[in-house]
């Protein structure tokens, strides 16, 4: 306890030195905590995207053309729509190697009087769907009824609220968990509701470029049978169904995954560089402190402090600096990361899903402990040298 009180006393009465050491630790902690949260958020986002896509192949009309724009719908929540005849679903199910196939229909609402908000509306068939339905089921115990909608977590509508889409009144019955993808900005309904909305949109002059009376869908999510070659099934789908493009979901995720790996590598390298540099600076400061404090420690030896006591005092001081710095660093990182999460997400243009509060707390705790450990480690040389000060000679030399 006497070590602690002396160390604490030294820290508060040397505020400049204490603050400089703490800020260095804070810088380290900010880099580690901030970097780790970002990398974890990107990984969670990728996993979430994989889970939400949940299919091996997605079949879209050829007019959807590049998969990039299709990908943007998932990653960034851009609105858009493309259609093909619903008979494509039956054709897909005929293809050898296809285990399951589920349709989705897209519709973009307008930023106009007829619509409460501009959003992407996605119609699903709850009986066939194996990608979105399990996610909806986590927030809604029953199925989506007619004119019911479930909203993504970033849609500004509460449960029980009525939203207008092409002048159709839809009731919000569930608010879905965050996925960190563009799906968070979409609204989900069953196919009956979607058909009503499509008809209302037609009436407003929004053309589907499909022959009148035809039932339309926008995409088919395909699950390939175990043991079948996905590439071969993909080719068969492209050959069997006219005017469509079958895209392997992995190719969408690979791009995201590559970007994620690149960003993760950059962040890790930056953290390593910051730590290497800071460790050198901490060691240099430690050596400078030896020169500055040698007389102080000689006095302490003179009046009864043992070597062990002095060593512990130096370690206590540096650990307290590390603790203070760790808390400042984690706090600063939290202030930068959490309020600006959406800004970071849109700047990265990648799925970005914050880890759970428990994981963040563990990370914060780990970072603070790391800051304490590194501070203590860097002061080992000082602790050793200062505890071996010869008081007789030192106090005489300083005359």
């Amino acid at each position, binding site marked *: 306890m*006497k070590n602690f009180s*002396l160390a604490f*006393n*030294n820290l508060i*009465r*040397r505020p400049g030195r204490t603050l400089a050491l703490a800020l260095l630790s804070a810088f380290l902690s900010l880099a580690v905590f901030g970097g780790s949260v970002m990398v974890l958020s990107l990984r969670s986002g990728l996993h979430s995207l994989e889970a939400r896509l949940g299919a091996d192949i997605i079949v879209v009309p050829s007019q959807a053309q590049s998969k990039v724009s299709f990908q943007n719908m998932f990653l960034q929540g851009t609105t858009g729509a493309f259609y093909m005849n619903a008979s494509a679903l039956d054709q897909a199910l005929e293809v050898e190697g296809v285990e399951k196939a589920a349709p989705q229909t897209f519709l973009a609402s307008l930023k106009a009087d007829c619509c409460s908000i501009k959003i992407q509306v996605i119609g699903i068939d709850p009986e066939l769907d194996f990608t979105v339905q399990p996610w909806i089921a986590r927030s809604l115990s029953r199925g989506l009824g007619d004119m019911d909608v479930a909203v993504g977590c970033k849609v500004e509508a509460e449960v029980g609220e009525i939203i207008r889409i092409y002048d159709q009144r839809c009731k919000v019955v569930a608010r879905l968990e965050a996925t960190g993808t563009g799906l968070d900005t979409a609204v989900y309904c069953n196919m009956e509701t979607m058909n009503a909305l499509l008809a209302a949109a037609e009436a407003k002059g929004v053309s589907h470029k499909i022959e009148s009376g035809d039932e339309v869908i926008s995409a088919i999510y395909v699950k390939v049978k175990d043991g079948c070659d996905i590439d071969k099934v993909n080719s068969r789908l492209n050959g069997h169904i006219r005017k469509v493009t079958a895209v392997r979901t992995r190719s969408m995720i690979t791009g995201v995954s590559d970007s994620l790996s690149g960003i993760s590598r950059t962040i890790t390298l930056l953290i390593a560089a910051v730590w290497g540099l800071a460790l050198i600076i901490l060691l240099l400061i430690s050596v400078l402190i030896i020169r500055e404090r040698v*007389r*102080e420690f*000689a*006095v*302490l*030896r*003179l*009046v*009864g*402090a*043992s*070597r*062990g*006591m002095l060593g512990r005092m130096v370690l206590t001081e540096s650990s307290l600096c590390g603790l203070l710095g760790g808390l400042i660093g984690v706090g600063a990182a939290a202030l930068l990361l959490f309020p600006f999460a959406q800004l970071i997400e849109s700047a990265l243009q990648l799925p970005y899903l914050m880890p759970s509060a428990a994981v963040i707390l563990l990370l914060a705790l780990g970072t603070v402990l790391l800051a304490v450990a590194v501070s203590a480690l860097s002061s080992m040389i000082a602790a050793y040298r200062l505890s071996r000060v*010869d*008081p*007789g*000679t030192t*106090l*005489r030399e*300083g*005359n």
Partner: protein
Amino acid sequence: MIKAEHISMRYFRKTGTANYFYAVQPTDLSIQPGELAVLMGRSGSGKTTLLNMLSGLLKPTEGTVRMDDLDLYSLDDRVLSRLRGTKIAVVPQGRSAIDTLTVLENVLLPARLCACPLHVEAAVKHLEHLGIAHLKDARPPELSGGELRRMSIARALSQGPDILFADEPTSDLDDENTFLVLSMLRAFAHEEKKAVFVVTHENDARQYADRLYGMDGGILTEK
């Protein structure tokens, strides 16, 4: 009581005939309770080296230093350090204050380090006797050399040691304070029945000595 037997301090240095020289030649010495011993000598004669060896700060090249039958240099660091904070007090040459503590906190530091009771009133009384009680809440950088010297003496006296070593305790003091400090050290020896060992250049110190030693070229002689 401190008893030194055949202690010497030898340093390696190329001289005419040998590779070393003696800072303190083999010496026997004992300091008794109730006695003020004064050691005088020129600079570089080995006075401080002898004081450091006697006070447990510097292990002699050979010989033993005993305090109440304890061989100081056979003790482990923790025990010897505790002795230095309780039974042995040292007033070193030069500044010996911790700048982050107040004057009073500096005076109470030995007691705080050994987790002994803090006798604040006694500490303030010593500061009063030495004329610096008004500075008890000041920080060492605010004090003059003479005030710092008196603070060191107050710290040593507040320890209530069995033996007090003082290295040039009057070097920064004017005549009035020199008289005051030497009188206090003699009173401490005589009234408290403690041993006091003073190393000094001050000729006036002779008149306070119960036993007077001289040192020249590392050789101790009793006068």
